[in-house]
C-alpha cells in the first residue's frame, strides 16, 4: 500500500472563482456555470506542487486534499 493524494471540492463552499482551473488545468476543468470538475485520479507526483498552490489559492477553501490508501498496482500481473 502507498499513500496517495486526491483532490476534492466541497461544493457548498465553492463559489466558482475558478483559480483552481487556472493553476491546475491538468486536473481541473470548469463546467458551463464556472464550477470546477476535478479529476478523481491520484495527483501525479510532478503535479503535487501545482496542486498545493491551487489548494492554497482557493478563496473559499473549497479545494481540498483527500488522503487515500491505494493499493500499489501489481507489476507482473500477466
Amino acid at each position, binding site marked *: 500500500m502507498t499513500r496517495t493524494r486526491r483532490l476534492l471540492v466541497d*461544493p457548498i463552499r*465553492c463559489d466558482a472563482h475558478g483559480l483552481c482551473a487556472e493553476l491546475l488545468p491538468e486536473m481541473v476543468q470548469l*463546467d*458551463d456555470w464556472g464550477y470546477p*470538475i476535478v479529476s478523481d485520479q491520484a495527483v501525479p507526483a510532478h503535479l503535487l506542487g501545482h496542486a498545493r498552490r491551487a489548494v492554497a489559492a482557493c478563496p473559499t477553501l473549497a479545494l481540498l486534499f483527500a488522503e487515500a490508501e491505494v493499493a500499489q498496482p501489481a507489476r507482473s500481473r500477466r
Partner: protein
Amino acid sequence: MSPTSHYLPRLLATVGRPDLAAHLQQWGPRPAGGPGLIHELGRARLGGRGGAGFPATRKWSSVAERRGSVVVVNATEGEPASNKDKTLLLHAPHLILDGAAMAAEAVGASEVIVCIDEHASTAWRATGHALAERARHRQDRVPVRMEVAPAGYVTGEESALIGWINGAAPLPTFASRPWEQGVDGRPTLVHNPETLAHVALIGRFGADWFASVGGAAHPGSALVTISGDVRHPSVHEVALGTRLTDLIGPAGPSEPVQGVLIGGYAGTWLDAAAVAAATVDPEGLAPAGASLGCGVIVVVGPQSCGLRAVAAIASWLAGQSAGQCGPCARGLPTVADAVGRLVGPNAPPRWNAQIDRWLWMIEGRGACHHPDGAVRMIRSGIQAFQGEVDHHRHAGDCHRPAPPLALPRSSEVMV
C-alpha cells in the same frame, strides 16, 4: 381489495384501528431490542425504505459500536408522490414506535426523535396521540419526542434533517457521517418509518417469517404509493418480486399504460415494454436501471403526455435545490428549461445531446444526492418517452397534459 389481490395485510393490518389496544391485540407485546435483533435484520436482508435501500443491519452495527447514540425517525416524507409514511403514521403508529424503541434498545441509544412534516397535521396529531398512549402504558424505556419539521423536499435529506434538529437551517451538509456525528454530535441512526415498522414485526416473528413472502435474494414486503392516471390513487403493501403490472392493476390504470415513474420524483421512468417486464425487487428493476426507492409509482396513461410529466417534475426538482452547490443551483434550472424546450415545437437541433452533456456535468457534483436524482429522472424520462420527443419535434405539441402529479389529501387515499 379483491380476493385475487396481490396486496398484503402486514404493516397495514390495523387499518382504521390505530390505537394501542388494537395494536397489542393484533401483534402482541413487543420484545426488547438487543444484539440478536441486529443479527436478525441481517438475515432478513432488510433495506432502508426511505429511498436509498441501505442495509439496516450495517447502519445499526456502526451506531451500536459507539456510545450515547440517538435514533431519528425520518417521517418528513417530502416526496410529493409518496403517502406511505403518512398512511403508516395514521393507521399503525405503534408499529413504527415499537420499531424505534427496539432500535434504540439494540444500539444503546438514549433518545428517540420522530420528525414529521409541518404540513402533515393529521399525521403528527395521530403520532402525538400514540405517544401519549404509550407514555400512559409505559411502552418505552428510552424517551421519545416528536419534532414538527419545516416542509421541503430537501429537509428530509439525512444531513439536512440532523442539521435542523441541531438548530441550523434544514440544509444538506458536505461529507456528513451521521453514524459517527449526528444529533448533538452524537452517533445517530436515521430510519424511515416503514423500515422501523418492518423491524417491529421482524423482532416479533423473526427473519424467516419476514421472508415467507417475497423473493429469495430480496425477501419481504414493501409499501407503495400508486398515483397518476389511475382511478384509485392508493397506498398498498406488496411482496417484493410482484409483477409491476399486477401491482398497479387493482388501482385502475388508464390502458394502455405509456410509462411509469418508479422510486419517487428522483426515480426512474420505465417505458411500456419495461413496465410489462418488471418485477418489483432489485433484480426485476435492474434491467431498467431502476429501484423501488421510496415506493412511489406514477402511471402515465394514453390521455397524458409523459414528456410533459418529465419536464414538470424536472422544473419542480430544480426549484427544490437548496441552492448551496453551483452545479445543482445553476445546472438544474438550465437543464429543466432545456427539457421544457423539448415539449415545444422548436427544440434546437442536437438538443438531446446538449441535455446529455449538461446531465453529465451535474451528476455527482452536489453535497447531497438531490442533483443525481434529478439527473436520473430526466435521463430515463427522455429515453422512455423518446417517441414523444420525436413527435413533439416533428408534429408539434400533442397538447395532452401531464398526468396528475399531486396526490389527493392523505385522508382520501385508499389503503
